[in-house]
């Protein structure tokens, strides 16, 4: 592993470097506390540091304190180097955040044992981080399709609306669902139905741009957040997705299945504050019209048109 050694005594760094290199470690050397602190802030910095307690300028204890004050960096396991007759001061070092200490002149077996202990803690730390990242994915993604889940895609939409309002850009939304999906399930069974959902997710993901977001909004319904696009451009993207879905049958075990989607499109006006619900309701209204007008098509509904319709009819969707 990578290890940072900081000591103002050249004799000590030569000795530690040789010892650690012999144990198979990659050694970074700092001649003072300031250099140690700077090196520890580099992106690929060592996660284990051996710091001399007494250094001119910034002491090992001070470096320790600074490392512990960081909240956005990975854990660094810190060993303080100290003289045997200095053990009374160790409380200060441990309270500053040191994990353990090594006395000088150091004993090779003790050093190895301390390094192993450090490695154990760092391994646990990276397992924990990996588990956290996995949990984060599980909490925000739909298990079957790998798309954002409903709450996560709504969160993306809220963020995008806030950002676009600041930057005076429009945001487009597309609500789409698979035509006659119940028929697919009834005819081919749920396993093939799941495969259709997965293939639809794949084709949508491949068609949108990297900065757009697509989420599974309901059973066979999807919500797409289209960054920085007005209603016309969003309509164009919906058309491309419609083509990507319907152009070729979905090949799968047991024979290909031909599927189509219907699409409802809306968009916010640049710089105008808009309620997330209103935007989705407008897209939903357009989607309803796409269904009524024969499916496998895109319809749009402007926000103001929806407001008029809402005022006149007192409801959005019959």
């Amino acid at each position, binding site marked *: 592993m990578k290890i940072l050694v900081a000591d103002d005594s050249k*004799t000590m760094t*030569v000795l530690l470097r040789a010892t650690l290199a012999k144990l198979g470690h990659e050694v970074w050397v700092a001649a003072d506390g300031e250099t140690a602190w700077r090196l520890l802030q580099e992106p690929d910095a060592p996660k284990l540091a051996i710091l001399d307690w007494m250094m001119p300028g910034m002491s090992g204890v001070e470096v320790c304190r600074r490392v512990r004050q960081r909240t956005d960096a990975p854990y660094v396991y810190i060993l303080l180097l100290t003289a045997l007759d200095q053990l009374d001061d160790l409380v200060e070092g441990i309270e500053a955040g040191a994990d353990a200490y090594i006395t000088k*002149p150091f004993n090779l077996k003790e050093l190895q044992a301390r390094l192993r202990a450090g490695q154990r803690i760092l391994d646990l730390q990276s397992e924990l981080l990996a588990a956290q990242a996995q949990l984060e994915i599980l909490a925000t993604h739909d298990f079957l399709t790998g798309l954002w889940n409903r709450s996560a895609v709504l969160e993306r939409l809220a963020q995008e609306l806030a950002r676009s309002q600041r930057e005076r850009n429009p945001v487009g939304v597309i609500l789409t669902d698979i035509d006659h999906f119940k028929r697919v399930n009834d005819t081919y069974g749920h396993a093939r139905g799941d495969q259709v959902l997965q293939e639809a997710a794949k084709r949508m993901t491949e068609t949108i741009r990297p900065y757009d977001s697509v989420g599974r909004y309901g059973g066979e319904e999807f919500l797409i957040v289209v960054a920085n696009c007005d209603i016309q451009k969003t309509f164009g993207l919906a058309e491309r997705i419609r083509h990507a879905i319907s152009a070729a049958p979905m090949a799968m075990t047991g024979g290909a299945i031909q599927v189509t989607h219907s699409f409802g499109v809306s968009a916010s006006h640049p710089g105008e504050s808009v309620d997330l619900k209103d935007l989705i309701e407008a897209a939903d209204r357009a989607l309803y019209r796409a269904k009524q007008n024969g499916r496998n098509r895109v319809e749009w509904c402007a926000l103001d048109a929806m407001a008029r319709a809402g005022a006149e009819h007192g409801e959005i969707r019959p």
Partner: protein
Amino acid sequence: METRTLEKEIVGKAREWIEEYGEEFLVELIDAYLDDAPTRLAELRRAFENGNAETFTREAHTLKSSSANLGAMKVSALAKEMEMAGRAGNMAQMAEPVARAEAEFALVRAALGALRSAPQEFAGREP
């Protein structure tokens, strides 16, 4: 201080390093120490003369462990005495230990210089 004891300690330590890390490492370690220690001693004297106990204590501390690594046990012991005095606020009484450490280091430097030029010969010799 008998030169013979000094040499015995230094050669004993040198043999350990050669066994563990090889001759090349020993030379590197000696070079680092011969580069390091004079600076420490100069800093020690300056801190002593300026009455800077904090620097005095720190420099003595560093000299103590690096000297021990090279088998310069007398320098190390003097440095320990100075460190403890610096910590206890008795630095003013350290005039003699400072001078003795400088004199002792001159002997250490000569011994290490000889060792550096022929590590094999020294390491092989019976102490």
